[in-house]
């Protein structure tokens, strides 16, 4: 329905730029929580993210980094300020338009892996692409296998996703985030729930995506090793960027 409209705008306003071009810019973002009392979580946050950049958002619990990430993810629309991605102003758009935008341009990896448990690994990876409807089913399946290969999960493609281990599920979630070749991939503590070995695997995949595929990664993390390996660290405290 509304899928085509934003896509066309994207192509006309922001032609694919090489590494270094800003793909995301947030300016003067303010956010309040009203329950139980009015409380300002984010204070005048402005920053940009470039194509192919691996960004880590760090800070203590409650500093607002997750809140910021969900605003950037377009799922939280209750904020002040403006958010521009790929040259498109996203602030003030309807939920359905934002959903279409997310489908095409954003990928997500969450802390608790969040696959659809009743579906097979392959189906989980394919769903966002089926929704986008840019390729035929056969092509989508082929692409899904490619992405699964990237995270080394191609052998488990036909298993039910609920039967995988945590680390395996997280790798599948990354494959799913990649299926539509999004410009930006967001992670909310993508390694928060994984052991050291699996964390390293995920980290390596992220790094590869950023540097080889030229896709931007913004990840909230508590893991100092993970943050250290990123291209840029944004440190937050009390709703402000301090570094």
């Amino acid at each position, binding site marked *: 329905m509304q899928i085509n409209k934003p896509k066309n705008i994207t192509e006309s306003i922001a032609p694919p730029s090489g590494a270094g071009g800003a793909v995301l810019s947030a300016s003067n973002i303010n956010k309040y929580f009203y329950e139980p009392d009015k409380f300002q979580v984010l204070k005048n946050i402005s920053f940009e993210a470039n194509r192919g950049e691996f960004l880590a958002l760090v800070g203590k619990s409650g500093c607002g980094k997750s809140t910021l990430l969900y605003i950037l993810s377009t799922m939280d629309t209750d904020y002040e300020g403006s958010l521009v991605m790929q040259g498109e102003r996203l602030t003030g758009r309807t939920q359905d338009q934002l959903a279409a935008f997310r489908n095409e341009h954003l990928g997500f990896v969450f802390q608790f892996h969040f696959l659809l448990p009743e579906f097979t690994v392959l189906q989980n990876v394919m769903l966002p692409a089926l929704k*986008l409807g840019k390729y035929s089913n056969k092509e989508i399946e082929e692409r899904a296998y490619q992405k699964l290969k990237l995270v080394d999960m191609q052998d488990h493609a036909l298993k039910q996703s609920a039967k995988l281990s945590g680390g395996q599920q997280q790798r599948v979630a990354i494959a799913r985030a990649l299926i539509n070749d999004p410009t930006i991939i967001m992670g909310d503590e993508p390694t928060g729930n994984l052991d050291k070995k699996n964390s390293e695997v995920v980290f390596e995949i992220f790094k590869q995506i950023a540097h080889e595929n030229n896709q931007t990664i913004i990840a909230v993390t508590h893991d100092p090793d993970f943050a250290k390996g990123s291209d840029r660290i944004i440190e937050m405290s009390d709703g402000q960027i301090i570094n």
Partner: protein
Amino acid sequence: MNLKISLQIAQTHLLSKKRQTLIAMLGVTFGIAMFIVMISVIKGVNKFLEDSALDSSPHIRIYKEITSNHPSIIEEANPSGFNVTYHQLPKNELINIKNGLQIAANIEKEPSVLGVSPQISSQVFFNKGPVPFSGQIAGVDVMKEDKLYDLKKRIKSGNIESLLSTPNGILMGKVLARNLNVKVGDKITVTTPTGNLKLVKIVGTFGFGIQTVDGVKCYANMSMVQEILQKDKSFVTDIHIKMKDSQAALTYAKVLHNQYGYKTQDWAEANSAFLAGDKIRNGMVIMVSITLLVVAGFGIYNIMNMNVINKMKDIAILKATGFAGNDIVSIFLIQSIIIGILGALLGIIIGFVLSYLLSSMPFDAGDFLDIKTFPILFEPKYYGLGMIFGITTTILAGYMPARKASKIDPVAILRG
């Protein structure tokens, strides 16, 4: 919105929770099955009662109304005066229809008329020992009467042809015959209201399955009844008419009244008690059906609601990966529709089987009704109606949880 993916997701959801799906389906199935059984039984009973009432009564009856309700001479002469008339009696009127046989012949020429039976009818007493039994005797042309009421089928003993060959024969209602303890070949004395006696021979018994007919009515040859009433050969008191279409009788009765001036009574007027009962039963069907469907609807609403609550995480993921509100609504609505269609189909099948079993169940209504099994109506219309009701209810009941699902805020769930 891409229905194909929604359908695929809905299908996976339904199949992964088979037991839950089945229970939701059975809710609809039970509602629809009971609806089908209820409506089949009640419609069947209605139709049976209507048929047996209509079969044994004419579509139109023409007769002369005797009433003492006419102005006295003094009132006609002095309309503005203060007149008192005590004990006004009816005029000495003949109760016959003048030229009745000729009128009957004319009506019979009408193409919409199935048959006409002129008859002479009178109250009589049957004397059996010291006790007089009251009854009604109708002098008829038995072949014409057969055309109207299918008498041959209703004969329980003897036959109608022997009435033609026996001038003083009568066909007696089976309940009356049993009360009088007489059977075919027996003779019995008939007393008319004017005091004439006649010894008649019973040549057959019949049963319409209606006590008010079987317990009082007798058929005899027209000439014999005219003779015992001391009337001439053209004396008829009633003309019974059957139309090809019973609904047409309602208007045709008025036409006949205007044409011949005699009182005409159509079947709806004669059976108004039956028809009122019909209306009440139909009202009951509607109430019970709505109750059943609402209960089934609440069942689905509950289960779909639970389903949405269980699937909150999935909905959040779908939304995060770019599924819009409409997609989510369609995913859950499709599940309800599938449950509704399968449940209603199964309900229709079970409803049919139950109705069929009921229709073959022996049912003894005694003399009151002439049936051996439950009267059940198998009407495809009601099966279609059940299907439509079932699906509509599920769509309505499924839409609310589906809308709720589409309103879920993914951030609240993904953040934990």
